[in-house]
């Protein structure tokens, strides 16, 4: 830029000397002559390309002239050269004029271009603004449209009847089928009209119904009044007819009397009484039900509080008589409290259950008022007097005859969880110490009385329930009967067993071979502790099958020098739960299930395969059969024992039994299974 400006300045100086270029002058002259000179107008006429050419040419000329001047000046030679220099300077001046002109023209052009651009830009701005306005307008309109589209009319929430139904049911003046069929808007309007019409009608109906209801209520009131006036009249008639009934000894009366007494029973005993009577009448004619105890005492219990206080003082007086000499110390007071807590209701229900063989199970049910539980005492009487074998001591004792009627029901703990809190107050540790006196609170007894105790919540709100009692009555009665029968059967079997006789009945003979050499020599009862201390009963104890409610026996079977001990667990649930045998053979060393697979197999023969030994229903002969089977098993065991070739002399037990094979399987089990009609032994 700076170089250009310096260039410009230089020609100016030259121009002031006055020497315009030739060509230039001629042209400007002609233009000036033609018309009024206007450079602006000239711009339009001239071609910018040619101007550019001209500019280039002029610059070249100038350069050339400058160079010549330079040349001349450097050569020296003053005069001639001065003229030439002057001439050249003039030429240069002309060129400068041309340049100046061109410069002006360029400026004008530039200005013109700027104006044009500006003008165009303004136009574009205006258009842009217009466009934005329009866009905004469009957007606004769209919003309006969506708003309209989203508008929710209230009628949409109304659940209208379907279209078909509408055309079917609405009167034509509302439906206007010809208008509305094609026009959904009109159609909706018409449907709304119909809805309104229908609602109006329903409202009318509702009002009618209300008035109707009121009317009926009034009628009921009137009828009720009438009925209540009838009750006293009926009562008086009943009263009047009573003497007539008594006079005529109607059978209704006797039952009525028992029911009269039953009215004084506490609720659980009442439930029991009703259910037992009903069951006796419907299913079991051998069941008799009676009520024992003094009705007056029971009545006294229900007298108002001041009387009951008298009652208490009475009982206190009685107790004082018994404990006259003692001072009323704290201990005695606690004792009294205990007695009060364990008090029985004066009435009790007596159930006599007669079995087929004329033995009778007497059950007396008591109700402990303060503990809200029921207890039972049992007694068995038989038709013929029994000789009691020593080992059968516990079989029919009232304490254990009904033990575990249902699994786990020992009847030694109170079934009512609330009792524990009551016991804590008076210092009773467990009910177990009192059951002999009070009777056993078995769970089934509570159920027969309709008492149901939840396990978790200790609360007093226990209601008596007939359906609970009814659902348990039949099963329990059947269980009671089987229990008595199985106990009597055991009783009989024990009597023989003690004398070393295994009393196999004739209908079970087919289970055993005719010749059995091993003999039962001992059958004694043993204590639970003794049983658990035996070395070969560990498995049973560990499996939890040796609880203290079971009865324990020891049997000894002998043949020659071989002695087989059998420890027996007799579950109270005999015979549905089999007696469990554990064996220990003393012959050529001691053999138990731990060191001899065949002893183990023998145990499993009597314990697991007991079902084939049950004999005829109900299977009370099981114990006898198991013992006889044990004798047979011992025979097989001894006779099939492999003979040691190295020992001289005959075998102690020659093989008499017929066996297909001596050993079988990896455990080398002997043929213990007896096949009845053929009489041979095989493997199971």
């Amino acid at each position: 830029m700076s170089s250009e400006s310096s260039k410009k300045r230089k020609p100016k100086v030259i121009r002031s000397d006055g020497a315009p270029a030739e060509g230039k002058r001629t042209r400007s002259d002609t233009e000036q002559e033609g018309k009024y000179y206007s450079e602006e107008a000239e711009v339009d006429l001239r071609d910018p390309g040619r101007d550019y050419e001209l500019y280039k040419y002029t610059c070249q000329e100038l350069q050339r002239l400058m160079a010549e001047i330079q040349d001349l000046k450097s050569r020296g030679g003053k005069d001639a050269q001065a003229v030439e220099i002057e001439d050249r300077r003039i030429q240069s001046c002309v060129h400068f004029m041309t340049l100046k002109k061109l410069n002006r023209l360029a400026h004008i052009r530039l200005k013109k271009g700027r104006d044009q651009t500006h003008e165009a830009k303004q136009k574009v701005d205006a258009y842009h603004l217009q466009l934005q306005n329009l866009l905004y307008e469009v957007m606004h309109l769209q919003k309006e449209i969506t708003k309209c589209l989203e508008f929710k009319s209230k009628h949409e929430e109304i659940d209208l009847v379907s279209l078909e139904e509408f055309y079917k049911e609405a009167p034509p003046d509302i439906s206007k089928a010809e208008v509305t069929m094609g026009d959904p808007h009109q159609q909706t309007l018409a449907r709304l009209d119909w809805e309104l019409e229908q609602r109006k009608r329903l409202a009318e109906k509702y009002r009618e119904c209300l008035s109707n209801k009121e009317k009926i209520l009034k009628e009921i009131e009137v009828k009720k009044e009438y009925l209540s006036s009838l009750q006293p009249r009926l009562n008086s008639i009943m009263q009047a007819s009573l003497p007539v009934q008594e006079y005529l000894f109607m059978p209704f009366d006797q039952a009525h009397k028992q029911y009269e007494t039953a009215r004084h029973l506490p609720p659980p005993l009442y439930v029991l009484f009703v259910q037992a009577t009903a069951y006796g009448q419907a299913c079991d004619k051998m069941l008799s039900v009676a009520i024992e105890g003094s009705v007056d005492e029971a009545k006294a219990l229900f007298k108002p509080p001041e009387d009951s206080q008298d009652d208490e003082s009475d009982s206190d007086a009685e107790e004082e008589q018994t404990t006259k000499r003692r001072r009323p110390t704290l201990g005695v007071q606690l004792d009294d409290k205990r007695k009060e807590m364990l008090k029985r209701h004066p009435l009790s229900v007596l159930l006599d259950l007669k079995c087929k063989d004329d033995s009778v199970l007497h059950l007396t049910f008591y109700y402990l008022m303060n503990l809200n539980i029921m207890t039972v005492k049992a007694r068995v009487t038989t038709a013929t007097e029994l000789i009691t074998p020593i080992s059968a001591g516990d079989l029919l004792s009232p304490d254990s005859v009904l033990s575990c009627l249902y699994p786990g029901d020992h009847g030694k703990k109170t079934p009512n969880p609330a009792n524990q809190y009551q016991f804590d107050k008076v210092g009773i540790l467990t009910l177990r110490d009192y059951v002999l006196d009070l009777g056993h609170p078995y769970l089934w007894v509570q159920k027969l009385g309709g008492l149901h105790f939840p396990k978790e919540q200790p609360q007093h709100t226990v209601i008596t329930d007939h359906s609970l009692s009814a659902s348990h009555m039949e099963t329990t009665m059947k269980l009671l009967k089987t229990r008595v029968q199985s106990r009597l059967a055991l009783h009989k079997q024990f009597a023989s067993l003690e004398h070393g006789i295994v009393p196999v009945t004739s209908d079970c003979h087919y289970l055993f071979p005719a010749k059995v050499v091993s003999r039962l020599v001992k059958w004694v009862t043993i204590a639970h502790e003794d049983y658990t201390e035996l070395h070969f009963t560990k498995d049973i104890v560990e499996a939890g099958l040796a609880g203290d409610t079971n009865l324990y026996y020891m049997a000894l079977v002998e043949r020659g020098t071989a002695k087989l001990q059998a420890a027996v667990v007799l579950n109270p649930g005999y015979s549905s739960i089999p007696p469990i045998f554990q064996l220990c053979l003393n012959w050529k060393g001691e053999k138990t299930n731990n060191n001899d697979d065949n002893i183990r197999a023998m145990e499993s023969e009597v314990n697991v395969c007991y079902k084939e030994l049950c004999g005829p229903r109900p299977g009370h002969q099981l114990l006898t059969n198991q013992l006889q089977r044990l004798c047979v098993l011992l025979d097989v065991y001894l006779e099939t024992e492999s003979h040691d070739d190295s020992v001289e002399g005959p075998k102690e037990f020659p093989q008499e039994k017929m066996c297909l094979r001596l050993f079988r399987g990896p455990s080398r089990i002997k043929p213990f299974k007896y096949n009845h009609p053929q009489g041979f032994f095989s493997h199971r």
Partner: protein
Amino acid sequence: MERAAQQAVPLGQMEVFQALQRLHMTIFSQSVSPCGKFLAAGNNYGQIAIFSLSAALSSEAKEESKKPMVTFQAHDGPVYSMVSTDRHLLSAGDGEVKAWLWAEILKKGCKELWRRQPPYRTSLEVPEINALLLVPKENLLILAGGDCQLHAMDLETGTFMWALRGHTDYIHCLALRERSPEVLSGGEDGAVRLWDLRTAKEVQTIEVYKHEECSRPHNGRWIGCLATDSDWMVCGGGPALTLWHLRSSTPTTVFPMRAPQKHVTFYQDLILSAGQGRCVNQWQLSGELKAQVPGSSPGLLSLSLNQQPAAPECKVLTAAGNSCRVDVFTNLGYRAFSLSF
């Protein structure tokens, strides 16, 4: 009336019966699944129980994972023997061999795939099958047991190809010599017999009870277990547990164990044996007792080494016998826990 009487049976009966059944249970056979993660055990009631070894061995194993994942009634009589092919579980006991698909068992669908009965001659009592042996190269299954014969069954067609006669009493056990296809069988008659599979003929007989070193007449002659490893054979039972050199038919080592042994197997450079008594015995080949590891059963009948390469985490030794428990030894040194029916 009768139905009512049946209802009156108290609930406890079932539980007592089950407890007695468990108490008198004997587990005769075991077999590891082809994937190595499951163990099948068969008992004397004909049931097969499937235990999940991987679940029982995992770190979050609970009590339930030591119970069978599924139990099914497979046979009427005891399940004396079981083997696994790569897809099937074969079980045998009361004269029949049955096949079950492992894949289906694990899905708890326990339906037998097929059953076969070898041609028996006697009819009064069906002879039992005491041992099964797979010959993988020839796709053969060899059965042996009560009828004193070895029956070979083609697993492809299910037909019985030939029977090998020679034993005079029932057969307890079988073992395979892999290199030369020969089968060894040991029986109640006290003999170990070698059979060539190619010619189906007897090659050699060793009457163990006749050798004074190992005979124990008071225990009887029977051979209860045998195992082989190339030229060596170990067998036991009535006679003492003895290591034999087969080519020379001479006893080389008599192991000092009084109780009759019911199962024996080679493991690396040890011999594992089990039988009457609570322990799994580990012997050096020289006859030294290396260790006795007590288990939970009073007597053991079968050992099973799980060496399936598919499940290296389940590489355990399991032992079962006269109880409802299968003892699991995670290493040979001690009993980790018991699986129970």
